């Protein structure tokens, strides 16, 4: 095996080991259907492995992994959007009728219900806002999200501020049961 191939393989193995769960969650943010999600995940891993032949260490491994994964998932959304519902910007999220249940948001809801609603909310967002909300939920700081998306840190901070406001409104004052 060539030296470059070995380095590509070992980088991929390291990334797959460290970010396996995160990549699965990311795929869930882009695809609800389990079967198609598996294909998407396979595609993400495949592109990730391929991309490591060009990895030049100019950004961290995490940034690289998320960048590639989001780009592959975005391409997936663009390919499939014709058969999907209309996607909206974060600012227009109030127009999602099915989720806008003000009564429920005032009550405490279970973790599984919360996760389901959160997934549904994410699925309806346009790719860029989806990338930001997923990165935020993964607990990344604004500068890391900025490196992945290409938006300025100030802009990310503003978006995150909006996201937290929206999430508070949607999942609301009642909070989440620890069950």
């Amino acid at each position: 095996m060539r030296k470059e191939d070995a380095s590509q393989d070992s980088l991929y193995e390291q990334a797959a080991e460290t970010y396996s769960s995160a990549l699965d969650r990311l795929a869930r943010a882009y695809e609800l259907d389990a079967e198609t999600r598996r294909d998407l995940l396979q595609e993400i891993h495949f592109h990730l492995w391929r991309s490591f032949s060009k990895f030049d260490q100019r950004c961290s491994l995490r940034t690289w992994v998320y960048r590639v994964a989001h780009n592959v998932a975005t391409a997936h959304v663009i390919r499939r959007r014709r058969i999907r519902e209309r996607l909206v910007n974060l600012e227009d999220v109030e127009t999602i009728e099915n989720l806008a249940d003000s009564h429920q948001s005032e009550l405490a809801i279970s973790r599984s219900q919360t996760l389901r609603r959160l997934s549904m909310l994410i699925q309806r967002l346009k790719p860029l806002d989806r990338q930001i909300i997923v990165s935020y939920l993964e607990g990344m700081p604004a500068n890391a999200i900025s490196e992945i998306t290409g938006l300025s840190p100030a802009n990310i901070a503003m978006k995150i501020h909006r996201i937290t406001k929206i999430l508070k409104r949607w999942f609301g004052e009642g909070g989440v049961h620890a069950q």
Partner: protein
Amino acid sequence: MPSEFPTNDLQDIWQNQPTEVFKMSADKLRRKAQQLDRKARLAVVFSAAIAILLFLYFGWGFLSFPEKFQTFGLGPFGAWSMRLGFGVLSLWGLFSGYQTYKVLWPGPAASDADLRTTLQSYRQQLEKRCDYSQNIWLRSGLILCFLGIAMVVMPVLVRDILTPLQLLADLGPIFGLLILWLAIFIPLRKRRQRKLQVEIDQLRAFESEYHV
């Protein structure tokens, strides 16, 4: 008890959701890459074969025209128009084969999901689609195809213009299909293009507004 800071809860719920373990060895991925490349090359060879068949079929029409079509009752102008039409269609066969090669042949561009930030990548994907949709007549060689068809059909149209029933029998099916195709294709293309353009404009405005 409900928590006091729900968004932290949400991060916790998101990060601790059940996930599946997905594992693929690097060797398996390498084999998959080789398989995909082989498949893509096969698809190109298949399309090239179809393009060559089209080229040969219409080219044969062009070359053998005098013997074959003299009995059609076309004047010399009509005969030449039809003959050149076959020639144009033959060139279209080659052009469409080349375009397929450009799109399908696996090269370094196959993995274009890296290096760029996701914003750039997203906008470029939309722009690529929009550009193709805007220039579809050129990109897919539809101009050549329609020019060829028009040159082939025109002499028959001129010949049959005074005998409507004959005209209907000769060209009705072709025009029927053409009208149906145009009625579906044009509005669909316009709608898709409009949507893409709106989204690209939104992204550009967003980038310039926030100096991304």
